[in-house]
């Protein structure tokens, strides 16, 4: 079977691939029934739903290798799918093809206490890894994503965590990878590149080729195993909630940067009023009731230490930063309210549900980019303007509101001791309502040029072909992008791996 030589129809091609895949994984674990396929057609994004032609569920790296070898010979596109919670259309099969559903590979192999690391498969969720790490006094870095999300995919996709103000993004916590390349070959990087390496090697060895797989969204191969860093789990912990008014973006930005530089917290999260309202009440109606009692910005600082004394030192440091930056401590009643309503002991550790998910009205458009912290206030104000323009509430009964708060928000976090920041702006239209989708896409069109002009960097190739937002950074990258295209062509000459991502068209991919 070789599509390049034999002129098969698409139907015949997939019938042949279907037969081949059944031989690899067994009849039960490959499907072409439309009732099964439609389950893989959509994710959290605004991207248009699209069905794959086949779904296959491997149970081992060897099976993944054989699947990719078949796909490579046939030219059928392959999209890897770990737990399906992608926020940018990353696992929607835009051009059909094979969904490689990795959920049967969900093992947490071993937690290495001494070297503070864990070896996992793609189907292992944050929740699952957390439980194993917690048993030995460690924790994984947890993103602002639910416990149901694949840790491996989120790390590879440069997930931003509450601990990112110290430790950077997800890829900064990767110690080693096992990757199946598009032709079925298997490559090992970092600590997995040599049997007896343990978990001590972070990159390489030598020139580090693992970066080619970071944020590649399955365009360079399928990651089947990862060794990732773990962090200490404090024995004592508490939260310090603080508040800042709507027009004080400069002050809150300064606070976030300073608190990161001071290195006195475990995590810091900036919640807007609607976010915190949802976090406390767990539903839209409750959030609307509690929101008027909250200031616009709520910076929740999570402190802790090995001893109570250490935690108290952290608290004093935090209070010092609050005083210096003029950000107020929330009243005790707020802390009591949070502690009484939120299962807060774990809410910073494994997130069951983020306010983002609670806000979901069907899907959301996401702009998530890195930016210098001092650009953040201007950028945030511009987003407010765009939100008002695109989501102004036309309901006269609600005309006092600039826009329905449940429909849009932004989120700012300091990265790596305040060196830079991550700003996220979300819009939440319902995919069942074309007007909402139109508004979401219009806002994206308005926002992107401004972000690029201000030096914002989209480091993930989010966006699909149908919405027209591919990797918006790609055209600005010059030689870097040319080199990337060359590498992609070398590794995946038929452009079978999640085609349509990376801003590389079929022509550019040489197909």
């Amino acid at each position, binding site marked *: 079977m070789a599509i390049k030589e034999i002129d098969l129809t698409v139907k015949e091609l997939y019938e042949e691939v279907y037969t081949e895949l059944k031989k690899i994984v067994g009849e039960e*674990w490959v*499907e072409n*029934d*439309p*009732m*099964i396929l*439609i*389950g*893989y*057609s*959509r*994710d*959290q994004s605004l991207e248009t*739903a699209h069905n794959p032609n086949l*779904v296959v*569920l491997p149970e081992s790296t060897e099976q993944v290798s054989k699947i990719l070898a078949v796909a490579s010979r046939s030219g059928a596109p392959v999209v890897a799918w770990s*737990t*399906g*919670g992608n926020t940018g259309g990353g696992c929607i099969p835009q051009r059909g093809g094979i969904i490689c*559903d990795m*959920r*049967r590979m969900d093992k*947490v192999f071993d937690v290495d206490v001494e070297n503070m690391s864990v070896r996992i498969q793609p189907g292992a*969720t944050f*929740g*699952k890894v*957390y*439980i*194993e790490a917690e048993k030995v006094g460690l924790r994984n870095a947890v993103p602002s994503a*639910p*416990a*149901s*999300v694949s840790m491996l995919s989120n790390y590879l996709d440069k997930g931003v965590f509450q601990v990112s103000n110290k430790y950077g993004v997800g890829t900064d916590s990767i110690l080693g990878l096992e990757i199946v390349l598009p032709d079925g070959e298997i490559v090992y990087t970092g600590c997995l590149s040599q049997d007896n390496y343990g978990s001590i090697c972070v990159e390489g060895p030598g020139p580090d080729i693992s970066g080619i797989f970071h944020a590649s969204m399955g365009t360079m191969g399928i990651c089947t195993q990862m060794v990732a860093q773990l962090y200490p789990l404090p024995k004592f912990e508490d939260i310090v909630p603080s508040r800042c008014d709507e027009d004080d973006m400069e002050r809150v930005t300064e606070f976030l940067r300073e608190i990161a530089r001071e290195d006195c917290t475990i995590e810091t999260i900036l919640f807007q009023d609607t976010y915190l309202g949802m976090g406390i009440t*767990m*539903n*839209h*109606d409750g959030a609307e009731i509690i929101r008027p009692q909250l200031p616009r910005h709520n910076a929740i600082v999570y402190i802790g230490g090995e001893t109570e004394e250490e935690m108290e030192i952290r608290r004093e440091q935090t209070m010092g930063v609050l005083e210096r930056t003029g950000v107020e401590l929330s009243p005790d009643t707020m802390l009591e309210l949070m502690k009484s309503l939120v*299962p807060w002991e*774990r809410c910073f550790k*494994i*997130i*069951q*549900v983020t306010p983002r*998910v*609670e*806000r*979901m*009205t*069907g*899907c*959301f458009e996401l702009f998530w980019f890195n930016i210098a912290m001092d650009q953040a206030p201007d950028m945030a104000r511009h987003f407010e303007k765009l939100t008002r323009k695109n989501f102004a509430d036309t309901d006269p009964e609600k005309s006092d509101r600039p826009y329905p708060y449940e429909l849009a928000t932004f989120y700012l976090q300091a990265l790596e001791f305040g060196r830079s920041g991550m700003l996220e702006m979300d819009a939440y239209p*319902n*995919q*069942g*309502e074309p007007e909402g989708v139109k508004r979401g896409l219009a806002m994206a069109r308005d926002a992107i040029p401004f972000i690029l002009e201000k030096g914002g960097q989209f480091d993930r190739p989010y966006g699909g072909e149908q919405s027209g937002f591919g990797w918006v950074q790609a055209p600005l990258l010059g030689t870097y992008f040319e080199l990337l295209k060359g590498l992609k062509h070398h590794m995946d000459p038929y452009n079978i791996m999640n085609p349509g991502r990376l801003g590389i068209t079929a022509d550019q991919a040489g197909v």
Partner: protein
Amino acid sequence: MSELTKSPYDPLLQVQKDSYRCGKCMLCKFIDHNEMTDTDFLAICPSGLRYKYEAYYASGRQEIARGLLEGKLEYNDRLLHILFTCTECGGCQVICSDQGNKNPLKTIVALRERVFRDELAPLPEHETLIKSMENYENPWQQPRARRDAWMRKMKLPDPRKEKVDTLFFVGCTQAYDPKLQNIARMTAEILEAAGVKFGVLGKDELCCGSTLLRMGNYDAYEKMAQKNVELLNSIDVDRIITSCSGCNSVLREEYEELGGLDAEVMHSLELVDELIQSGDIKLKNKVNRKVTYHDPCHLGRYTGVYDAPRSILEAIPGIELVEMPRNRANSFCCGAGAGVRTAYPEFAGWVAGERVREAVSTGADTLVTACPFCEQNLGDVKQPKIELVDILELVRESMG
């Protein structure tokens, strides 16, 4: 009228908003993260855990609803398998309803109703049950005359002829299944011993309609339920108790849509717990067992009865209660519900095996439950390390 269904009424239109609102957070696959303790027992959805494909989870079924509404899918046999392997246990619902009032269980019920209206259902395996409901007003093809067989040797009052406080609504399964009739008898004996003035309807008791509702035959269910509401409201009692979890949830929750019942509806365990606390039931004998309690979905998630059974077990001298990793609202279904045991016995057995494996992992020697369907299904698992008993058996043993 939707153009995509043969029926003049498309139930999917009622859940369209929920289907589109599914945010693909994938939380519907797992128990509440605050309750996660054992990585072996994180799953909440039986069909998803067994069949793995996205379509077998609530998140995938929402996409199927969307596909049908948009005319992108055509009915086929696989759809029936996907829909009718759902036990309607409500595990997905518990976690999803917290996330912005979405309602996956409603979507599944609407999908079943739709395929029934479009004459793809009932499944052949369900046909017998549904015909039996039409002919005998019970799903087990038993003549009405035998409905009171369980109480032949007992003299229990008819509340229409004699004034009583309480009506004991027995339910079809405990009335007819010889293996489960003892639960009905035990309930009556315990109530008698505690001095409760109660009566039963005997041969005149009607099926609650649960079977029709869960299999998608909503019109027939509504007729049956309406008849039952009228009958039960014609009887002057303060409360109706049932020892069947399925009847409990239908009488208590579903009948609300039809105007509800005048009397308070309780599960028998809630009353037994009250009687123990008030001292009307005295637990004297030691029952030396290490037990774990399986929350039946229709008692726990559907009507929120979690504390009463635990309170009873804690009151029995000698009993040590240990919880399974998945308990209360995070309980894992036994696999029997919503016609699954009838249509897909192999799958139902697999789910029961998973639940018994979890029970064994606690080190308990006894698996306790309080639902005839759970008892049927869990009881089929061959596991010598643990004994399955109804909670009332333990109460009676302790009462002496």
